[in-house]
């Protein structure tokens, strides 16, 4: 049996025997044709149905909407407190107005901050604790610059806590090696947008015109800055670019702390790999002086954990702290606060 398309295409093409170079050329032409036609269907589909993970990479053209406005230092800031509050209604409703005056602590940060806040609530009933304030509107999870913006927003809104704690974990630091602070932006609709490494030449031009090309690029590691490759473990090597981002963010946090006379403690947690496997503490050595220079109080939890005889009982299999770990963190943090002198 001969197939109809064999007759129509191939016979026309090769009724006369061709030399090798011509056959090769025809093959390459066919290859390009097959590629382009099939990819055109893909491009058509992607344009019709933009995958959600592509939308933050479209810059100002992103159709996403959100609650942000551009900020020169932190790249994003909150447009209004009302919109921010709407994301955590239960928490803010529970405490009523911000200017109520029991002893208040605010804990900002990732899931570790939530566990710490919950432990504080359980052990310090005389305190009002804002344990875990989420920003659900960003592209992906909350990041450190958002917590800084949150601290600034709450203080500007009149909240005068006794202290603000910002929890920082190594995984959070490593996210800035994949997406530098300057690559974060705000779309016309107020959503957070993300940048990517745009190569020069035809590939860069292709990314500008092809949504599917951009999708593939941003899903690959090629989107990351070149120094992301060098940073297998952020705890052992903090790139200068990341250090510079944190200097900037610590600076804003320190300035906010001084402006509103509210002390801020940076709670620096080691990751479980640092504790359970031989590792160095370059991250702590880099960030602690940086935060102190910005006027922040720093609590480095690593020495306390390392001093424990059985470290494994402090960690859950998913690398979060166990109840025992959280209890140790809180007791060490309180001891640190008792030792440290309040900032001027």
């Amino acid at each position: 049996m001969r197939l109809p398309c064999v007759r129509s295409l191939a016979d026309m093409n090769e009724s006369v025997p061709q030399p090798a170079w011509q056959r090769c050329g025809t093959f390459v032409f066919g290859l390009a044709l097959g590629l382009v036609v099939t990819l055109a269907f893909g491009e058509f589909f992607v344009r019709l149905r933009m995958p959600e993970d592509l939308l933050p990479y479209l810059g100002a053209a992103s159709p996403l909407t959100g609650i942000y406005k551009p900020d020169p230092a932190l790249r994003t800031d909150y447009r209004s407190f009302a919109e921010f509050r709407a994301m955590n209604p239960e928490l803010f409703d529970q405490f009523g107005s911000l200017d109520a005056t029991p002893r208040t602590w605010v804990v900002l940060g990732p899931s570790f901050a939530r566990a710490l806040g919950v432990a504080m609530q359980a052990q310090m009933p005389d305190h009002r604790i804002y344990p875990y304030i989420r920003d659900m509107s960003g592209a992906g999870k909350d990041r450190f610059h958002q917590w800084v913006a949150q601290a600034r927003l709450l203080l500007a809104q009149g909240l005068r806590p006794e202290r603000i704690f910002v929890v920082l974990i190594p995984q959070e630091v490593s996210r800035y090696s994949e997406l530098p602070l300057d690559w974060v932006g705000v779309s016309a609709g107020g959503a957070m947008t993300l940048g990517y490494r745009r190569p020069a030449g035809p590939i860069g031009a292709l990314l500008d015109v092809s949504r599917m090309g951009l999708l593939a690029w941003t899903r690959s590691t090629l989107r990351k800055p070149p120094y992301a490759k060098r940073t297998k473990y952020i705890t052992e090597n903090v790139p200068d670019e990341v250090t510079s981002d944190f200097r900037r963010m610590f600076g804003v946090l320190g300035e906010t702390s001084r402006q509103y006379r509210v002390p801020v403690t940076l709670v620096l947690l080691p990751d479980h790999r640092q504790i359970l496997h031989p590792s160095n503490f370059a991250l702590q050595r880099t960030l602690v002086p940086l935060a102190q220079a910005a006027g922040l109080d720093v609590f480095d939890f690593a020495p306390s954990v390392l001093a424990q005889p059985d470290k494994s009982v402090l960690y859950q299999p998913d690398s979060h702290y166990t109840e025992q770990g959280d209890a140790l963190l809180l007791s060490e943090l309180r001891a640190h606060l008792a030792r440290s002198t309040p900032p001027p």
Partner: protein
Amino acid sequence: MTFVDKNFPILLAALLLLWFCARGRYWTRLGLLLVASFYFYGYQHGWWLAVMLGYCVVDWGTGLWLERTRHRRAVLALGVSFNLTVLCFWKYTPLLLSTLTALVGWPSADFDAALADGWIIPMGVSFYTFMGIAYMVDVYRGVTPVERNFWRYSLFTSFFPHLVAGPILRASEFLHHLRPESLPLRPTLSWEAGFLIARGFFKKMVLADTIAAAIDPFFANVSDVSTAGVWALPYVWLYALQIYFDFSGYTDIARGLGLCFGFRWPENFNWPYLATSIQDFWRRWHMTLSRFLRDYLYIPLGGNRHGPWRAALALMVTMLLGGLWHGASWTFMLWGGIHGLLLVVNRLWGMTALHARLAALGGAPGAIWTGMRIALSFHAVCFAWCFFRLTNLKDSFTCLEKWIYFDADKWWVGGAADGTLWLLLGIYALATAAAVYLTRGARLAEVSAQFAARSLVRGALWGNTAALLFMAWALSPVGHNSPFIYFAF
């Protein structure tokens, strides 16, 4: 490891390269495939290898013993019993204990919950159990010669492309090709192999996973107030497509990988949703399992040889066990029972005079009747899928109830009403129909052979394949890259 693991392409490329370098050296090639397969299987849990090797030792040893003993039946029974006992232990212990708890209150529900949480079934154990049983029975029947080399037999069982979810191969389809005179000398990176792999990944990562993202929330909350009044049928249609794309995608990849190493394996799917009856459906769906159930269960149970009632009984038993094979849930057994019942009804219907008259219809009435049969068969299959997808009986019945009772304003809502999803499926259907038209339904192997010498078309086909592979990755929905459904079985 799975085919969608990020390290899998590295393993495959390294293996192909080494295999290429080792051409001519039989034992090196065999060893390479074996080591790669062991690595693939033991990648997640090293102890799985011990389970699989245990099977290999017993099945291979049983084969040798069958050749030498006078008590062949007893030896076969011993070998098959071992396979089934170990399979049942892994698959059904939690189900058995939870059923005991429900019936007699022992052991405690807490114990059951803790056991179920930590219970890990060795991946693909059902598939290599069936291959082992098929081998032993074939040796017993004298259909296949005994394999004397243990490592060759181990490779037959453990070769990574088919290890986890089939196709369920017979010795004649694979084991015999591992002998020195048949083992391919070098990798055969044909367009057919590349296209099968690319199509398989596209089916799984784009079509099945996109459908899953759209319908999973509905099935997760089917008895919930959030889905009250929603018409369930579009969701069930989509699930039918999801499981087809998921499983046939896996089979495509497995067959493509097999072809890369020079092994041609049977097809597992042949347009199953175009079946005109349930009987026809089982000739087109998971064909290697249907074949196994027919040859190693239905026929030994008596098959058609003892009259229609005995045949119906054998059919019911076969399908009930086939259902239970899919998983440790009574709903799977029910799913098999429904298919068994439908097959019996189908068979009885086939004996009526009306069936004969309708089957003889030609022209437009014949085409309409065929269309009705396809639609009816598809919906009967969808009916049974409700028990397959939802492993809680109450949820299954709620889902079925929502086929009929739904709010007028919710007949087309949620993930199933996503127009672009239907557009994607439509584009795929059109592209497939165009390909079938252009090739007059020829098999891929024929298409490949006819285009081999025509550089323009060959180039276009390779271009299409490369683009399909690229799109499988680029268009897959992020966050919904679930494992292949049949990996659970």
